[in-house]
């Protein structure tokens, strides 16, 4: 499913579009632990997390993740947003908590890999 469709369906805020909001999202992963994301998230995944610091983008870029969604209306730190721009990683926001957001993503057909 493409990122812009997901954003529209779930009413996500596009904080930064990553230069290509229509990119294909191939799966999903949810964790707030960096090592967990590094070890288990897959390229093309939508990563659901409440972490907003710059390492989130570093990890997403290293693993070629499709996008990062910040939960609970959390805002990225300025350096996080800057790094997202540098690395072309889309940053989105949701007012939902992780549990509910993931449930809706699942309903849309996004699966863990």
């Amino acid at each position, binding site marked *: 499913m493409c990122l812009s469709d997901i954003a529209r369906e779930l009413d996500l805020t596009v904080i930064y579009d990553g230069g290509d909001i229509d990119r294909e999202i191939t799966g999903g992963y949810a*964790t707030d*632990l960096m*090592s967990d994301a*590094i070890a288990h998230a897959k390229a093309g995944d939508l990563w659901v*997390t409440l972490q907003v*610091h710059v*390492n989130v983008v570093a990890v997403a870029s*290293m693993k070629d993740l499709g996008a990062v969604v910040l939960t609970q209306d959390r805002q990225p730190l300025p350096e996080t947003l800057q790094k997202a721009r540098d690395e072309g990683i889309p940053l989105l926001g949701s007012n939902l908590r992780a549990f509910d957001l993931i449930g809706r993503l699942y309903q849309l057909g996004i699966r863990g890999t």
Partner: protein
Amino acid sequence: MNRKETVNELQLLVYELDVESAMTKEVVTVSPDLAMDKLPKILKSNRITGVPVTEDGRLVGIISLEDYVRWAADDGKPSCVGDVMTRKVHTIYSDEPLVSAVSRLERFACGRLPVLDRTTDTLAGIVTKGDVIESMLGNLEIDYREEGLRTYRTSRFFEDIVSDSTELSFAYEIRGESISEGGEVASSLKKTLRRLGMHPDVVRRAAITVYEAEMNVIIYAKAGRVRVSIDQHHISMVVEDEGPGIPDLEQAMAPGFSTAPESVRELGFGAGMGLPNIKQCAESFEIESVVGEGTTLRVSFHMEEACA
């Protein structure tokens, strides 16, 4: 590219390319009213051996040098092209795959096929065996060049260097307590290994390893460095730090065990997964630590090894 791959590429190309991409679009045509004795001059000046005959853009026949010779040998009485031409012409539509052109040229043993536009049914071009070969070679060359750039294999790079043994090495410094810089060494190394054309799986595992090691240095130590050396078959990595050292290595290796401070855990680090992650990625794994002095980690990856 070995021979088998080339054949597969060619097979793919004849299905992927359409006739339009190979055909000659500017076609010389003649009218059926043209006098036969004018034909040789037209063929000769255009260096062709046959020409489609059209009337208002519609193909009505084809006339070749062979037809001319037959006509001249017969008695050569004044006639026009329309009387001598072959009326039953094998044609092909411009949107058909190139493979259809090849099989039709072969089956009807003809040198050229007039190409028709499917919607207007008018003559759109002409395609010869030469056009087919030229188009396929052209496309193959483009593919080959792109492929060549992508798969600049490290092994090939090493083959070009004349020496008894060759090793590439890169060094990176890590500052302690610089959490926001976390991942920079990993991302530089990942870029470098990719440029060297290494297998994506090896790149992935090396990047994860260096990321975890880098974060360990940042979280626990004052400073550290990463040295990466690459020879024809292996990537070896040494990560050293001036840190507190690890009193119990077995405990440190246990998944979930961590001594990270709360401030770091809040950021999602210190989950006790770093060293186990590294061990899972690397083919060889050694760790030495002296309390109060520092820790040295040595890992290596086999380059040809597939996914772990």
